């Protein structure tokens, strides 16, 4: 049976997913070996499915939607992978944590730096509320594997996925596999 693969995009710039697309023609080989069951770049399914084998999660946990989705991902996934520096360290989205809370961040972004017509976003049910702090995935849910990089290069992503396809655990060591940045 084919591996059920998902990719998820939380608080990140989508660069990790762009790097995933940089796998180019190897994506065709990958597509033959896995079922992509959920992904912002490779699937149209809107709800996160059950019984996922491997899920690459880009981005940290920054808002209510991120939180809800990562809990669902964790509950339905065998191997949860922190995909890229934002998922692992909170990285650039986490730079707002120094302002110490969601309210000061919104005030800074929407009022203090606005040109005079600024207003705080308020659309309950449409625009998710910011969490007080952006958190790396493993500070919210247990994470099984870490794939660092900003973004991880296509070569690194491939070297990570190939052992998984053979049912092995990738060896995460050395600059080629774990260097941040």
């Amino acid at each position, binding site marked *: 049976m084919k591996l059920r693969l998902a990719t998820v995009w939380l608080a990140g710039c989508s660069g990790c997913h762009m790097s995933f697309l940089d796998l180019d023609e190897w994506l065709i080989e990958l597509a033959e070996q896995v079922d992509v069951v959920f992904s912002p770049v490779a699937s149209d399914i809107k709800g996160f499915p059950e019984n996922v084998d491997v899920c690459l999660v880009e981005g940290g946990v920054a808002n209510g939607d991120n939180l809800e989705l990562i809990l669902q991902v964790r509950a339905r996934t065998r191997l949860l992978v922190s995909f890229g520096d934002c998922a692992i360290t909170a990285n650039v989205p*986490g730079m707002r944590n*120094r302002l110490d809370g969601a309210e000061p961040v919104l005030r800074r972004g929407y009022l203090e730096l606005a040109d005079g017509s600024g207003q705080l976003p308020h659309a309950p049910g449409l625009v998710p509320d910011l969490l007080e702090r952006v958190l790396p995935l493993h500070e919210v849910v247990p994470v099984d594997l870490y794939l660092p990089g900003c973004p991880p290069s296509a070569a690194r992503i491939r070297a990570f996925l190939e052992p998984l396809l053979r049912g092995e655990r990738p060896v995460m060591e050395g600059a080629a596999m774990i260097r941040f940045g």
Partner: protein
Amino acid sequence: MSVRTLTIDGRDVAMATGATLLAAAREVGVSIPTLCHLEGLSPVAACRLCLVEIEGSGKLQPACLTPVAEGMVVHTDTPRLQDYRRTLIEMLFTEGNHVCAVCVANGHCELQDRAVEVGMDHSRLPYRHPDRPVDLTHHLFGLDHNRCILCTRCVRVCDEVEGAHVWDVGWRGEHCRIIAGLNQPWGAVDACTDCGKCVQVCPTGALFDKADTTGEKHADPARLWTLVRARARGQQTP
């Protein structure tokens, strides 16, 4: 010159009295990770990465500062030391704000290098995200306290090599940081000669040339040793 013989990771080594364990280890090709240590500057054992086990001693000792002794049996890479070193690197990453993706030193950073060496693919400690300032008052250089690991290379190079003593360490604990002059803006300190040695020896992107943007700082701290050696030779020749 009297010689001391000892064993490092099972290898016999003979060193002159007064040599450090770090020098002895390098003599026999044993690599001990370091961050604050730099050839040409006095050792201070600030980063604790080079801690080693010495048989018969319950205390771990910093290799950069511990002199060789006769009959010492030293272990530099035990599972306990490996775990401590990874924890130390995680503490450095989580204590400040090290956002590699937007750092001048990305790709040429000794902290990044050490993280790879100790096998850090994530931090087991929570990130603090402290609020730290950036000093851009100097006309050529900047100091980003977010990226500073308090190795004090800048303090030492300015004092011991340049002789200007612009830098010091102020406060303690989580408030501890590098200060210019008497805790003044860097640009207001007349003692600074604009030589840039502090920028060159900084292991991270904390001290940087303002002309450099993301990933453009290519410092070469090892060059300091060339300068210090050349000066020492100059002083020997009348």
